[in-house]
């Protein structure tokens, strides 16, 4: 039995596209991270993003290699965030912060801190409106 080369190529192409789609779907599942508030983050203990604001009145610790601060999420819950890295640039000027990490007990262990600044694309007015 001889197959035409065109069919073999066609079959290989379709198989590899399907394989790639499967791979993409799997990676999508592996890499998707949800936004949550501290309450849900504490319940699920999963890696997530939490958006909130720096509570300036409470203690902010800046050591050489760790940085900690209190953060209030949109629901008003306050949690201490610990970040094993230096203080992010522009932290004081941030209108809001988004932390990525896990909440264990009463400390949120941040893997990453995104600082949202009043940028070129975002006017001062809009920032205050958001807060």
């Amino acid at each position, binding site marked *: 039995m001889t197959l035409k080369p065109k069919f073999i190529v066609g079959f290989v192409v379709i198989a590899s596209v399907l394989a790639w789609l499967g791979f993409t779907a799997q990676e999508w599942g592996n890499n998707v991270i949800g936004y949550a508030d501290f309450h849900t983050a504490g319940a699920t203990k999963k890696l997530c993003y939490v958006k909130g604001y720096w509570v300036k009145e409470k203690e902010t610790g800046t050591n050489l290699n760790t940085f900690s601060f209190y953060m209030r999420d949109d629901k008003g819950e306050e949690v201490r965030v610990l970040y094993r890295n230096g203080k992010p*640039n522009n932290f004081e*000027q941030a209108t809001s912060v988004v932390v990525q990490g896990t909440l264990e007990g009463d400390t949120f262990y941040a893997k990453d801190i995104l600082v949202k600044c*009043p940028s070129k694309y975002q006017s001062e007015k809009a920032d205050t409106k958001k807060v």
Partner: protein
Amino acid sequence: MFIEFFTGKFITIIGFTAAMLSAFAFYKAAQSEKITAVYDEWLLLGRRTFFVMQAAIVTIGVHLLYLILTHQFQYNYVKHYSDTTLNMFYLVSTFYAGQEGSFMLWMFYGSLFGLFLMRTAREYEAPVMSVLMLSQVFLISMILGIDVPFIGLIGSDPFAIAVGPAPMEGDGLNALLQNPWMVIHPPTLFVGFSSLIVPFSYAVAAMWKKKYDDWVKPAMPWILFSAATLGIGIMMGGYWAYKVLGWGGYWGWDPVENSSLVPWLLIVSLIHCVVVQKKNGGLKKTSLFFAVLSYSMVLYSAFLTRSGVLGDTSVHSFTDLGLYNQLVAYLLTFLLGGSVLLAVRFKSIPVSRANESMYSKEFFLLCGSVVLMMIALVIAAGTSTPLIDKLLGRATTKLEPEFYNKVTLPLAVLIGLFSAIGQLIWWKKIDKETLIKTFSLPVSAALVGTSVLVVAGMRDGSMIVLALTALFSAIANAQIFWKVIQGNPKFAGGSLTHVGLGLMLLGMIGSGKYSETQQIDLPIGQSVEAFGKQLKFTGIEPIDGGAKSGFKIEVTDGGKSFIAMPVMYENARMGTISNPAVEHYLTKDFYVAPQGLSGGITLAKDEVKLLGDYAVKFTGFNVPKDIDANSDKALRIGAFLEITKGGKMEKIEPVFVIEKNREPQMIPASMTGDGIKFMLSEIDATNKRIFITADGLQTLTIEASIKPFIGVLWLGTYIVAAGFALSIYRRWKERKIVKAIAA
């Protein structure tokens, strides 16, 4: 007030009306091509109203610029984006800092392209211009700022005046953006974005007039121009992030970055299809499809970044101005208009059956286009996650950058492979006999190169495969380039671009996968080893009259030594801003981003560390025996330190005083006859560690990284740009030759 109205909103309304009239007149002209007298009359009206719109756009542009330059802070737009401290250069750049201004820039470019098209498009003028003017209508509607009954507010007026007394000072421009690269990056990107309307209009014109082949010739230089400017704009942004922001990388898969990459990938797909179509008339439908899709994706990007739908998932999207519905209307009109027209005409578009063989030149170009489209679609899908969540009513999710790296990797391998094989087959008359001969040189050279990389430490299988195909592509195309340039240099653009592409892929592998990063503390005056280099922080140099601090770091690397000077400064609006120092080597970059300056060291008990020339040993605490927590008396905690300098050891005890209702106090201690005061600044009770600082003995914390082959990425970028320039030149000349024959 009267004059303001007549140079602002009123002119905008005139421009909007003129654009509508012009679109309609060009439409009528296109519909009555057969009757010359009617055609001429409508065409004349279309052109005249076009010039009215052009004048209106220029007038409002000059007006807004005037308001910015004269600091008229009573205008919201001027107040939000500029202040009196900015120099002329940056003041001008605040023009397009907000949504309204960037829409004005977009429509200004649109009108410039219109001007060109009216001079060069000839028989395509009427249909092409009517599509382009329809786009202008939508763009101008974004800045109308008119409240229409039952519909609501249309557009956001850049000339809106704040109620109350005019502020004395504006909010200023983001300090990170006060950089020459950032001034030219958005306008360049916008040239690319806005110019994609031209290929789209030509494609619609082709379907409208049922002439499916001629359009590619005049459209080709435009397609290349869009791809080149958009590509350069994207890379400028990357270069800025790398060299100035100190983000450590040039690409972060941020939604805003992605949404400029997607149209670019599609326009490059279009280039390949059009090349095939010009050669043998194949892929007519595919070309039309890509032309429609690429501008639709520009509009989709605009929708994502400007409608507020991305919300918090992007580091930098525009403020939501309530243009959501208008942006959706703009997108759907062009996406559905183009696709429906394609669907209606689909059956009537002739199919060329000339080449179906897998060995044909065209096969690999089609494959390349399809792979590029798959990359574009997967990125577009990933970037749309917040939108999908919103539509499904779920909680917002976001994809990690790693997702894009992983899923595009196999496709990048195919790109490398197809760009090598496709180009070899394209330029060499290949049959089955010469196949092996043609491929043997580039394949073996690529294998040798990859072996070198494996020996040098490349272990990851997928990276080895990608490096192999990237090298294959770069070498094969270099070989072709060399041949072609000896014959007719004009035709060398394609191969040159692909050489650059191969190099860019190599650069991405090196800098993306094999960069190493280390956080390093550099106490002043001390040599610290990192990455086989000796780093010594020698002092702070004031820059710009003391406004900024440059940290001088002496780097000794074998025989070579140089000063790396990263910069940090404070900005009222943005806080601490840092600029990295980058030292280029032939095969790598040494990248130093400053993290912070502190005057001290952390010590555990009996640990010895150097602070400047002083060896400091912490031997224990001096704590009062009976601590009464409720006592109002001050609590004194001392730290016993043994300090050695120049062979002389002395015991000192700096003290930390805690008292109720008072700030903690630090009592410094110093060695006899020595000016340096040591202080106990912090006590970490849980880990039994202390933090010792000393005046004049600072520690600089840096993030140092080695980025292999990143120079190859930039070199590849330059080569791609040069290749595009050559191709545009060639296609523009060809277009003229055709005209000369026709005339």
